[in-house]
């Protein structure tokens, strides 16, 4: 009896240890990522952000002055504190001391000022005794949130060579093809669990899926329309931020009739069908620019198909609606959605034609790169070529008013908020992503042995 009890205790202890070991973080290993993007440079100031994957790669390499928390609030990073002068045209950031670049040199106020000047030439950045001052023209009330963007990652540029300030250092860079990062032992937040990260670039989605299935990659991009299928086939699929899919006119409406036509178009698009059929449920029909989880009022804006109203509004005006619709020719899904919109428009009595050259309106997929709604709205307005929205204060009412004003301009018709997806290998542990698509690879560790 005693013997049996002892064996049971030993067995239970072993099982508990195994279970504990699987859940316990472990150091080591190489995290392998694939992406369809093929950037020619990893300099955050000189490269376009491209995909969310590239943006997150910048975050691995280059720390920002501030980061956003899960609610979109700026939190200290390289800067420990900040303060705006009245008018919010001049900001003072107090820097965290004792930090170094990957080459061992100190991250000084001068270095940060130089990096920010390279990122935004419109700013005047001055090093001060304990930090930097940034002067903006016009006022930038959301400057801290903006500084959390990967584009404002702090980098040291000497003789064409980049030196990273983030958790990883560049160990090998084959432009457009492969990037190898190595975990920095002296990182101020502490060394990451994984030793290194390998990023294979310019991979098609099909090759990425195959690489994932063959365990040749740990994290791959999955197109939204394939996420459901990938999940159905048993793959582990995680979210990776949200994009706004919208129709953006190249100019403002010039007459009430044209505004009516634009309204008819907005009401005649079957967003649900696009979401269910083409995006396989990976989106949310949108009547607003910002998603409901970010603002809480989006449900007030209708996003359902209202073909009757659309036809009625179309009939109310004698204006000729012959628009050309542009789309991202490199994205097959963009073309299919554009074709669907053309069909929907025809149902509503409107004439749309696909065109790749100088279209009247364009189907755009704009990443929501931040969790701070005012900043996102400002960024969306800039992307759509609209004036910078005015915010009376930090309240939701002010945000609502600003967004409603943008929508009333009829320059942009929101269609869907599309969730980006990532395929994750079984050995990737503790993969977390913020709602704005920010990865946290510093929390990731690899379980099991690599083949």
């Amino acid at each position: 009896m005693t013997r049996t009890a002892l064996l049971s205790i030993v067995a239970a202890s072993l099982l508990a240890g195994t279970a504990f070991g699987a859940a316990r973080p472990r150091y080591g290993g190489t995290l392998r990522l694939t992406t369809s993007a093929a950037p020619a440079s990893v300099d955050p100031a000189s490269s376009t952000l491209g995909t969310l994957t590239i943006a997150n790669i910048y975050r691995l390499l280059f720390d920002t002055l501030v980061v956003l928390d899960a609610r979109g609030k700026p939190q200290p990073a390289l800067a420990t504190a900040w303060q705006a002068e009245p008018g919010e045209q001049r900001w003072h950031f107090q820097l965290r001391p004792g930090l170094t670049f990957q080459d061992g040199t100190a991250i000084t106020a001068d270095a940060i000022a130089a990096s920010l000047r390279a990122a935004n030439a419109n700013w005047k950045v001055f090093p001060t005794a304990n930090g930097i001052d940034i002067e903006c023209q016009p006022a930038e009330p959301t400057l801290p949130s903006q500084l959390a963007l990967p584009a404002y990652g702090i980098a040291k540029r000497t003789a064409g060579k980049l030196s990273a300030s983030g958790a990883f250092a560049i160990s090998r860079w084959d432009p457009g093809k492969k990037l190898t990062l190595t975990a920095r032992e002296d990182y101020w937040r502490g060394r990451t669990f994984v030793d290194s990260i390998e990023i294979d670039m310019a991979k098609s989605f099909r090759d990425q899926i195959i690489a994932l299935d063959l365990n040749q990659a740990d994290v791959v991009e999955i197109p939204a329309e394939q996420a459901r299928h990938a999940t159905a086939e048993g793959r582990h699929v995680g979210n990776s931020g949200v994009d706004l899919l919208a129709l953006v006119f190249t100019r403002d409406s010039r007459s009430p009739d044209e505004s009516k036509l634009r309204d008819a178009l907005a009401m005649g698009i079957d967003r649900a069908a696009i979401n269910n059929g083409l995006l396989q449920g990976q989106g949310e029909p949108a009547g607003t620019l910002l998603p409901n989880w970010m603002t809480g009022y989006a449900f007030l804006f209708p996003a359902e198909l209202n073909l009757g109203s659309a036809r009625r509004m179309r009939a109310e005006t004698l204006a000729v609606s012959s628009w050309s619709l542009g789309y991202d020719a490199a994205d097959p899904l963009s073309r299919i959605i554009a074709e669907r919109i053309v069909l929907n428009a025809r149902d509503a009595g409107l004439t749309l034609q696909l065109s790749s050259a100088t279209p009247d309106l364009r189907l755009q997929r704009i990443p929501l790169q931040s969790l701070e709604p005012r900043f996102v709205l400002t960024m969306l307005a800039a992307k759509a070529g609209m004036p910078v929205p005015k915010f009376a204060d930090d309240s939701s009412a002010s945000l609502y008013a600003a967004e409603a004003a943008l929508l009333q301009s009829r320059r942009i018709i929101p269609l869907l908020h599309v969730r980006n997806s990532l395929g994750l290998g079984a050995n990737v542990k503790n993969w977390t992503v913020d709602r704005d698509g920010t990865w946290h690879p510093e929390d990731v560790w690899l379980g099991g042995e690599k083949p």
Partner: protein
Amino acid sequence: MSFRRKLLAVFALTVSVSVGSVAWIVLVMSRHAFERADADRTAALVAQFHREFQRRGQDVARRVEAIATSDAVTRMALALNRSAPDYSSYVGEARSLAESQHLDFLELIDAQGVIISSAQRPARFGYREESLSLSSLPGDAFLKSEELAEGAKLALSAVREVKVGDKSLYVIGGQRVDEKFLASLELPAGMRAMFYANLGAGFSPSLLIDASGSVRRAEPLANLIKEVQDQRKETEINIHWSSDAADDEIVHALPLAGQNNQLLGILLVGNARRPYVELRRHIRYAALLAGSAGIVLAILFSGWAAARVIRPVEQLADAAREVAAGNWSTQVAVTSADELGELAESFNHMTRELLQQREHLLQAERVAAWRELARRLAHELKNPLFPLQLTVENLIRARQHSPEQFEEVFRESSSTLLAEIANLKAIISRFSEFSKMPQPQCQRVQLNEIAQNVSRLFQAPSDRKPIDFKLDLADKIPEIAADPDLLHRALSNLVLNAMDAMPKGGKLSIRTHQNGDLACIEVSDSGVGLTPEECQRLFTPYYTTKTHGTGLGLAIVQSVISDHGGRISVRSQPGHGTTFLIELPRNLDKLHRVRQARSTSNAHS
């Protein structure tokens, strides 16, 4: 043209016409044969294209059948039988199924005709498929118009019904009829396929494609396409792409109808005529070359044959010329036993006969001449002899009967005898002179001058009856090489004869003129004239129509003219006078040679 050349021309023409006719017949027959073969080839190619097109249709139908019977479609059909099927999960199904069977178009349609999934236009899910009638589905492949975002396209399509449970699922798949489709058709060399998508009224060049894309020059095919659009039946024409016939192309047009018998496309099967035209050209060049070579060879052979045939004839002609020149002993070689040989033998026989005849004639003439000479001599000598006899007899009689008068008679008789003896001597000297006619001593002579001298000589007053002299001299009579004394003598004889012919006076004219290379002088009188018989014998020595004279005058004239290389003729009618015509060659070359010979001999001496 010589007989040889005529014969050569006839030979060459005959052979050339023959060779040319054969070459032309060969060309015409070969052209007909090639055109027939080309038409047969085109028909065979079109039939092959038909089979290839049908095979591709069967291939499309087989692929659609494979999709319709696949597990994925069966599962989908099963899911559609549920109470609230979720169509959205199948939106992307058609694309993967189409890729699995290499189809360009694939649509999955429910029993109500609603598109569940579309490979070619995924955005159309949920819309109705209007271009297909589900009530009568064709079993074979058919042409179908597909509405794409970039416009309508045509596809070789097939449809299959998948019936699982109560609800049917339709699978419509096809391959795009485009340049790739045309390029994939296995066509023989020299053949090409074009396709016209009949997606609008009339003809639009942009809708015409071939295996390489848009047809660069579509306009020449417009009429053919319009004809097929109007008549909807297979048509064939020859397209001239350029002025070079080798670029021609026989294009066969096949109308292709869709499910509802609507003309959706026109297949154009082009058969290049270049190989045929080049082969025909090759044959033509070969025929022309062979014909030309044949003609050249024929001409050469004709020349050789003509020469071979003509040589005996030429020998006969040369021999005839020799005979004509007086060489009657000429003989020709008999080289063959054919008609020409017989002709040569006959010629030789003729010349031999001529020689014999001439000998006989000469003998006869010689006898006749001697007889004439004897008669003349007898006549000439008899006349003086008779007075001599009478004078001698008168002397004898005077001596016997009147011795007193003998002295007087003797004187008279002596003078008479001397006169008659002188007469006899004159007769004998004239005969002697005729026998010793000198050779002409040629020099440059102006015929007009001789005529003027003679005229001047005989215009002197005499006791004759008055004669009206007329001198008609041509302005430009060229100089001739002649002996002026002999000519003067000959002309004087003619003038004397003319004057003798006009005892009662009359008109006498001397006329000079030029006849080609000949210098001519005519002496005409208005005397009694001559009979034709007299004209024939006029130049015979010792023949005379006068009561006096030796009959040697005109013979001497003829001898002089003949020695100068000329000839004399007479024309006369009794009562209408007589005209003598002397024709003399210029003979300047003879004069030049004589002078050269003289100068050479002088130099040597």
